[in-house]
């Protein structure tokens, strides 16, 4: 029987279609990004996916934690792989996955680049071999916006340098180097200068504004992880410690579960969203334990020294865990204003049916965090130091995965907890449930709890999602989420409640074309001005999307989308719409690719904005916000040489509709220092990558 299956699986491999790594990664990113409303760390996500392409995961050896952490497998697929291995032993071919209900042949083809059924050997004793067998990449991206941003224009003409202005040009540039030896050893350097930041000179004497170095070793004997330089730490369900970004609610219902995997290399360009120092984790039988220490400087809005009483501690109204923009004198004044020390440990115990673990850490800042006094942030963390302790679990029993985390933070002894389940009810029906309860005083710094907002604070809710294969051609999926905020929020002067419904019907009659219709409606409560005080009102946002994707023939693909958003607030209704046409053309196989889009949007107000995923170079941020009425055109050319050189060139053109009563000359795009004169904005992007092996 197995031999027959082997023949079948071998034949199947002839039908697999080769794609470039850029395409594979971008397709996955698109699928995830297009389905979530939260900000996502594209660079980190793309880097992680690329690591799997270079060094595929071994389906026969990967444990439950590794399988769940693999973004290209959904939770139900991981469950079935684990169960299949228990019953029948190792996979003899990747195409054996076909016998699992949650894998179609298309699914298998999609994950082919990321998986294998045997691991390649490690040559750790010979450092020369590691160097020779590893892969090197140098990558650089430059992006220029025209016309110039107001901040840079002011800078050109300014005589009084104390006034607010950009200290650098409108050019964005980054430079990266990366070395990988399989999935075991990697190191790299990342450098970045944002548009408006100075390169060199008094403001950035080191050249680039941001430098990052990392070294990471993992899964070598008992060494689970060794990280030096910049690294990330993510545990459990992200309540106690999670330095990265995580996916929010989406139609991919398994995203409701965090699949964090401890310490990892930090390859992103998000400034400050990392730990800096060292981390070590060892695997001792069923116990994995790790320690870490981090010392870095973060941006903060500290009060001027002259205003401060020397007896009192330095006070900051905020610390920046992201952003890292140092363009103006005031932004530069906030740069590295606060020192940040953190240390902690975790213990993870592997059980026959899952794992259970604890993570604990303390953090000490050089300034006391004192947010502005507002009723909504009355219970927010205030102080110089805090600690958090968390207990998490992740159990698998047959087709059920139960997981959760309970976390305690020292400020007000607040507790946050989240518990969830992924259940495969039937070959064609999967469901997901998540309950969360986040105290209003829980410290949200370095937390990524699942919920309406990414802050694990001031929220209770229950989420239920499902996906059902109605027939060979039709799939229905969606979720319903109910949530409340027991205390005030920004923009809501009373406790609020809301609900969120998402439903998608997918139709895929053939390999050549597919279509889906998506409906989402979300109701929240927000302030409206009353006669004496603000009052709450419901704001309901409905979104309809019809998307079609059609492969004409090998190398030619067409896509269309219509999306409408309707926002009802205080008896007023506003509309937004987007129509676009995509063309993807590969005239010479994978060596040359052309992607183009023409889009037109009509947006009444910013609340009606519509997001779309645009063609961009690898690692670049692809989500474009249609928050205006007008035309958008974007084109991407990718050329790949045989000698490991890749070029990406992108041109994007935005033309906003000028109201009839306005003159072109007085119209502007954007605001503040980001303002551009006129109604046209053009962006030129060039990326070059040189890869050895």
């Amino acid at each position, binding site marked *: 029987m197995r031999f027959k299956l082997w023949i079948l699986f071998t034949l199947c491999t002839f039908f697999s279609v080769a794609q470039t790594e850029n395409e594979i990664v971008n397709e996955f990113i698109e699928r995830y990004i297009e389905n979530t409303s939260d900000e996502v760390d594209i660079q980190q996500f793309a880097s992680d996916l690329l690591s799997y392409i270079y060094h595929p995961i071994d389906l026969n050896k990967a444990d439950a934690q590794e399988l769940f952490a693999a973004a290209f497998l959904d939770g139900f697929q991981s469950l079935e792989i684990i169960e299949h291995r228990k019953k029948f032993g190792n996979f003899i071919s990747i195409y054996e996955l076909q016998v699992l209900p949650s894998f179609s042949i298309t699914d298998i083809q999609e994950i082919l680049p990321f998986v294998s059924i045997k691991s390649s050997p490690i040559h750790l004793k010979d450092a020369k071999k590691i160097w020779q067998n590893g892969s090197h990449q140098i990558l650089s991206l430059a992006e220029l916006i025209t016309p110039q941003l107001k901040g840079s224009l002011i800078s050109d003409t300014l005589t009084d340098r104390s006034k607010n202005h950009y200290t650098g040009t409108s050019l964005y540039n980054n430079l990266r180097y990366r070395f990988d030896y399989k999935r075991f050893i990697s190191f790299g350097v990342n450098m970045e200068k944002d548009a408006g930041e100075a390169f060199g000179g008094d403001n950035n004497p080191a050249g680039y504004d941001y430098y990052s170095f990392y070294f990471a070793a993992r899964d070598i004997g008992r060494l689970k992880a060794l990280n030096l330089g910049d690294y990330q730490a993510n545990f459990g369900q992200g309540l106690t410690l999670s330095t990265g970004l995580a996916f929010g609610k989406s139609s991919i219902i398994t995203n409701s579960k965090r699949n964090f995997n401890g310490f990892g290399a930090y390859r992103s360009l998000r400034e400050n969203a990392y730990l800096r120092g060292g981390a070590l984790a060892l695997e001792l039988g069923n116990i994995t334990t790790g320690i870490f220490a981090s010392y870095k400087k973060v941006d903060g809005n500290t009060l001027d020294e002259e205003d401060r009483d020397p007896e009192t501690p330095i006070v900051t109204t905020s610390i920046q865990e992201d952003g890292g923009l140092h363009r103006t004198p005031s932004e530069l004044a906030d740069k590295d204003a606060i020192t940040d020390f953190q240390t902690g440990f975790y213990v993870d115990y592997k059980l026959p049916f899952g794992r259970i673990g604890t993570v604990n850490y303390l953090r000490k800042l050089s300034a006391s965090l004192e947010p502005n006094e507002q009723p909504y942030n009355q219970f927010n963390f205030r102080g110089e130091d805090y600690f958090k302790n968390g207990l998490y679990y992740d159990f698998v029993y047959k087709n059920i995965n139960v997981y959760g985390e309970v976390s305690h933070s020292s400020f007000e002894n607040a507790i946050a907890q989240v518990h969830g389940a992924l259940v495969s009810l039937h070959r064609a029906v999967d469901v997901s449930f998540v309950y969360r309860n986040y105290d209003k005083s829980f410290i949200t710094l370095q937390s990524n709890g699942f919920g309406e907002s990414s802050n694990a604070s001031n929220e209770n809710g229950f989420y239920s999602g499902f996906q059902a294969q109605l027939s060979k051609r039709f799939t229905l999926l969606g979720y319903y989420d109910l949530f409340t905020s027991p205390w005030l929020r920004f923009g809501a002067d009373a406790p609020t409640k809301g609900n969120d419904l998402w439903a998608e019907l997918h139709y895929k009659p053939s390999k050549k074309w597919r279509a889906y219709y998506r409906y989402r409606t979300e109701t929240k409560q927000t302030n409206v001005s009353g006669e004496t005080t603000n009052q709450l009102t419901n704001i309901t946002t409905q979104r309809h999307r019809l998307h079609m994707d059609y492969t004409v023939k090998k190398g030619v693909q067409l896509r269309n989308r219509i999306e409408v958003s309707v926002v009802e607030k205080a008896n007023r209704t506003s509309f937004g719409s987007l*129509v676009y*046409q995509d063309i993807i053309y590969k005239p010479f196989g994978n060596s040359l690719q052309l992607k183009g889009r*023409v889009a037109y949007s*009509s947006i009444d107000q910013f609340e009606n904005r519509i997001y779309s995923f645009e063609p961009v170079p690898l690692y670049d941020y692809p989500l474009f916000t249609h928050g205006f009425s007008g035309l958008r055109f974007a084109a991407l050319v990718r050329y790949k040489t045989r000698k490991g050189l890749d070029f990406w060139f992108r041109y994007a053109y935005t033309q906003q509709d000028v109201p009839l009563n306005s003159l*072109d000359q007085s119209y502007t795009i954007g605001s503040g220092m980001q303002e551009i004169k006129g109604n046209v904005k053009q962006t030129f992007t060039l990326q070059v990558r040189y890869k050895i092996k």
Partner: protein
Amino acid sequence: MVKCLLFILLGLTTAINSYAISPPSNNAISLSLGGSSATYLNSFSIENNVAALAFSKNELSLNAANRFGLSDYSNVLLTGNVSSKLANIGFSYQIAPLAHLTSQKAQLAVAKKLGKQVSVGIAINYHRLSSTDAYYKTANFLTFNIGLYYAVNKKLNVGFQAFNPTRTPITESPLERLPANIRLGLDYLLAKNITLYSDVLQVSEEKIDLNAGLEISRDKYSIRGGFGLNQLVAVGFGWKADKLQLAITGAYHNQLGFSPSLNVGYAF
């Protein structure tokens, strides 16, 4: 699939419950389908979706239309489509002869098939506005439209067109621009003789508009009916002999009134 399409149309109709101001249909068939025209194959495609010309037959057609019984809104349009080995060539000329502001438009188009299922097209349009009492006096300007048409399978066709995406200025002072419009449409063969047409039309500075219509054909005769969210309901009738084609449509707007339209076509 049919139920899905109707469900989606219903969903979008519910969502787009505003009244958009869309350009009027340029021929009797399109009007009878509520304005849907991105995938209808005839020589009028030069304006509705220029790429569809590549799949259209050789013909010369004339349309005469009036809107709401107002002489200023009378329009005559002559279109032609000629196929060659290299590509299809389309041309048109239209004029509003009775209007105070006389508008004329001449179009020249090229459409080419790329394989059996896809075609692309581009049209260059010359516009002339002239009036003795409006501030336009005389305005001459060029615009273009580009289109894409593809046959997904035997039942489903999709069309996309961007008309004047750069919003060409009509006058410099005060600055006034001709609106852009983006049309995305499909047709689906519901049954042997019944085809559903639907377009989404996005005009700059206007709400998105949705049109839909059905065409029932038997032998030489066709009956069409459609609606547009722009408060439009239309019914039309078509007849064709070997080479001659006629189509007549009456459309009703619940505030502005009745609009007739007539097509006469000759296929060669």
